């Protein structure tokens, strides 16, 4: 099973300049967004730290989409993934 995580420009430097990271795992090893981010943590821990807090909660101004769906409305980190899913990370519209 493979999942692609697409990174925002601000975090690419922390992933060796990559705009996307291909993650591959065994069957059941990447069944949810949380599983995929755990795999991302192994490959690129600095990226993971920018996305989730010490409490393993998604930072409030980070948005994660599976396809076009914001995971906040589709099960959060428990949102299911299929083989070939694309997980897109984008900063939210906030600030002043």
């Amino acid at each position: 099973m493979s999942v692609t995580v697409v990174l925002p420009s601000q975090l690419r430097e922390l992933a060796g300049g990559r705009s996307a990271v291909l993650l591959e795992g065994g069957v059941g090893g990447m069944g949810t967004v949380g599983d995929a981010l755990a795999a991302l943590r192994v490959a690129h821990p600095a990226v993971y730290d920018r996305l989730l807090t010490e409490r393993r909660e998604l930072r409030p101004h980070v948005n994660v989409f599976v396809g076009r769906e914001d995971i906040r409305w589709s099960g959060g980190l428990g949102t299911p993934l299929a083989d070939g899913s694309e997980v897109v990370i984008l900063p939210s519209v906030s600030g002043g």
Partner: protein
Amino acid sequence: MPDTPAGLEARSGDAVIMVGTTKGAFLFRSGAARDEWEMDGPHFPGEEVYAIALDQRAGRRRMWAAPGSAFYGTTLRSSDDLGATWSGKEARSVKFPEASDLSLARIWQIRPGRDSEPERMFLGVEPTCLFESTDGGDTWAPVDGFLKHEHRPKWTPGAGGLCMHTILPDPSSEARMVVAFSTGGVYRTDDGGATWRPRNHGVRAEFLPDKHPEFGQCVHKVVHHPSRPERLFLQNHWGLYRSDNWGDSWQDIANGVPSDFGFAMAMHPHDADSVYIVPLEGDFFRCTPEAKLRVYRTRDGGASWEALSRGLPQENAYETVLRDALDTDGAETAGVYFGTRSGKVYASADEGASWTLVRDGLPPVVCVKAATLA
């Protein structure tokens, strides 16, 4: 994005001002006369910088900053070349343990430790906690006695968050240290951080039904002089105080100030009786009284205060100076510096007698640290 700043080109004896704003850090350099300032920045554009410091112990010239992204969290960065390059982007070295159920919101204070232990450093963070490094800042851990303090469930955040903003190690004893945070007040350890006791007797909590609780005060800043470390000066959320016994008791010293409300407080580098503040009108109008921008100074340990206003606007100045946005350098004739929420930085090269505008138009200033380069 702005061009990457080059860093300061500075020599021994130069003065440096490090300014943290809500959208990056700006560095300033001047020769010993402190009459012309060069700016370098923004460093960390778009990120808030509430804590910045220069560590000159053991022959270092290491700058520290804690940029925080509204999106991706707070990191701790250091520079050994006055801002030309910053290390630490990849490591997020300051974290609460997962078992604590806390997550880092902001770093409020970076404090190099005692001169006698140049590898030790401290951080004050939000949610309130003291972090310690014993390897010069490479790795960090919360001080357990503070992390697990029995009062923690009762500490509540003020408008700025539950922030530890003051860290005062006793220069003569590794066992003793005072910290202060909003809200909670002053706490002291006498056993190297294993236990911490509130030290707020005499400090009022205007916003609580019980005006004199054991803890829960909204202390905004505490300073002391290394030559007389047991004597603490405190700017409270309403109230100016002094303690002559490491916080065991406090006396009101709001003698001749237009308001005893304010955030900022800074110690003179050589005179243990001289302290600077910037009073604000009050908690419901946090601006300089009478629309006059005035720094106040005591030279007699708080018995009296005088306004310092030459060169500062004395009309239509609705300014706010936050708790860490006032500092002094180490020069023989002390320089005094402050920044405003309206993005102005002012400097005095004559201990506050006169002031000049160093820079206008910066993002809101949240911290100012000054130093004379060794």
